[in-house]
């Protein structure tokens, strides 16, 4: 899934509130080489020199993305035990497992920048690090699972396709794999909804209810309007961000409207209509006040999501300690034998 990372400063990020200059004047050979590689659309690799601010921005973005994958397991996991057929149960478990897998390789990509997984997870559990706000909304009926696949993963793909060309090599490569799996999830989600729409009236109501609740939240996933997006300019300059929030949002809406029509659901926006002159759909106002409330921790499920991550971590401590203790004992036994 996805994080609106570039736009959501962590409390840990950018210490001292120092402003990042958009185009910094190269001060050393190393910096000049870095800037030249960025200008030539080349890849930065872990062993390459990079400015500290670039490193920090990437650690923040990639770890937020990893946290989003891991927290994102919870709203969908909520329906595993109740999936209404064995086929859908298997698909859902595999999907949630994929999200966990994305979390793993994103943590690994971030580790190439010199920050350990434990440190990143500590940031999440303390509430310092952010994750995508879309996961702070409840999943209230089975159709939410399909709509998360169709719309949430759909929005994630819009955001992540450009990241496959991100200037930082390990992140770009991780995103190629993530995007392939997300497209698969999106098609699966849409297919599940198509089947439900051909079912009973109650099933069609479930699908519409899920779309009504999630549509606006998905539009907000692209982050604040470009005018209010503080990190975007530097991100664009560094080749970390490639397409602006508003452009991505528009692309998502234009792609989704015909899909909604085929599905037979209404998108809950009376202002949504085709604008011939722009060649795009016009759409209504996103409730940014509600979005920021949720980002700041006061959405419907923030406390439950975070507390659940904390509990899993605390409850699992003895397991991790056992694995470590066993490994140490084995090592000790091996060196004793060798001696």
């Amino acid at each position, binding site marked *: 899934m996805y994080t609106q990372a570039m736009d959501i400063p962590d409390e840990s990020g950018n210490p001292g509130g120092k402003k990042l200059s958009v185009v910094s004047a190269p001060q050393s050979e190393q910096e000049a080489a870095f800037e030249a590689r960025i200008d030539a659309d080349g890849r930065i690799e872990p062993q390459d020199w990079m400015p500290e601010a670039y490193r920090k921005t990437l650690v923040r973005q990639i770890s937020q993305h990893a946290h989003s994958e891991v927290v994102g397991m919870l709203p969908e996991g909520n329906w*595993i*035990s*109740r999936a209404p057929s064995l086929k859908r149960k298997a698909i859902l478990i595999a999907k949630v497992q994929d999200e966990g897998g994305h979390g793993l390789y994103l943590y690994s990509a971030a580790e190439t920048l010199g920050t350990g997984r434990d440190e990143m997870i500590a940031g999440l559990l303390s509430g310092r690090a952010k994750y995508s706000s879309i996961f702070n909304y409840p999943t209230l009926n089975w159709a939410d699972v399909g709509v998360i696949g169709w719309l949430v993963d759909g929005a994630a793909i819009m955001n992540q396709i450009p990241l496959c060309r991100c200037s930082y090599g390990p992140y770009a490569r991780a995103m190629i794999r993530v995007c392939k799996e997300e497209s698969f999830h999106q098609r699966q989600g849409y297919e599940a909804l198509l089947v439900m729409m051909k079912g009973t009236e109650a099933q069609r109501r479930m699908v519409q209810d899920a779309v009504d609740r999630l549509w606006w939240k998905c539009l907000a996933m692209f982050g604040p309007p470009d005018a209010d997006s503080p990190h975007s300019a530097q991100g664009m300059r560094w080749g970390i961000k490639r397409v602006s929030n508003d452009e991505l949002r528009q692309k998502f809406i234009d792609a989704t409207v015909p899909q909604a029509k085929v599905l037979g659901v209404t998108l809950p926006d009376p202002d949504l209509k085709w604008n011939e002159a722009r060649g795009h759909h016009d759409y209504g106002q996103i409730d940014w006040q509600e979005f920021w409330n949720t980002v700041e921790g006061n959405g419907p499920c923030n406390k439950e999501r975070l507390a*659940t991550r904390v509990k899993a971590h605390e409850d699992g*401590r003895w397991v991790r300690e056992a694995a470590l203790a*066993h490994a140490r004992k084995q090592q000790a036994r091996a060196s004793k034998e060798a001696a």
Partner: protein
Amino acid sequence: MSTAPNDYLLHLADNAVVLGQRDAEWCGHGPILEEDLALANVSLDLIGQARLLYQLAAARSGGGATEDSLAYFRDDTAFRNYTLLELPNHGALVGYAASDRDYATTIVRNFLYSALMVLLWDALQKSPDADLAAIAAKSLKEARYHLHHAADWVVKFGDGTEESHARAQAALDHLFPYTEEFWTPSAAEDAAIASGAAVDVRTLRAAWDAIVADTLAEATLKRPEVRGYVPEGKQGRHSEHLSYLLGEMQGLARAHPDGTW
């Protein structure tokens, strides 16, 4: 060609779906991300096995039965799974008690069950019931991985810290008596043995004992003494826990009996 009676297929399928449901409860709550993925994998394998077995049973019974009618529209007393597999992922408590999940309970249960299934699937892959043999051959590969994963953790727990050792021993003490059910054939198993399509589980007992003894020795854990009550889940007489598990699993499907998913 001899075919296994449907009751026997349902016994195998119910085992897989019920444990698949329990293992999936860890999804999003594992002690470390790698274990979240591993348990999801085990659960997926088990649900896959259940689907194949239910499909086979449905095709053979006719009358419009499907994998989902068998999984979702039979009541708890019709379920033929081992009682061991329906127990919650925590220590011994009554049906309506609430408790935190305990990873030692989950791992020890997976260990005791997969140690049986590597032997049973291995035997069943030679069954003259070709459909069952094919499912067994596929499931054997999966069960080997499940056993490897669980035994590895049993050793880590036993050898790890004082706390992990105590938790693993407590889980063994709690769960071991339920394995007695493995060795007392049900009417369905007797019929399956008589059909020639299945093996007598009692012939696998020595090999199972050996797997368990090896792992427990490496883990420095003690095999509990077992006496008294022998559970009868596979004969439809379950613990207090199965109806809760099925209530949750079947609720949505039953609320929309005409739904298509």
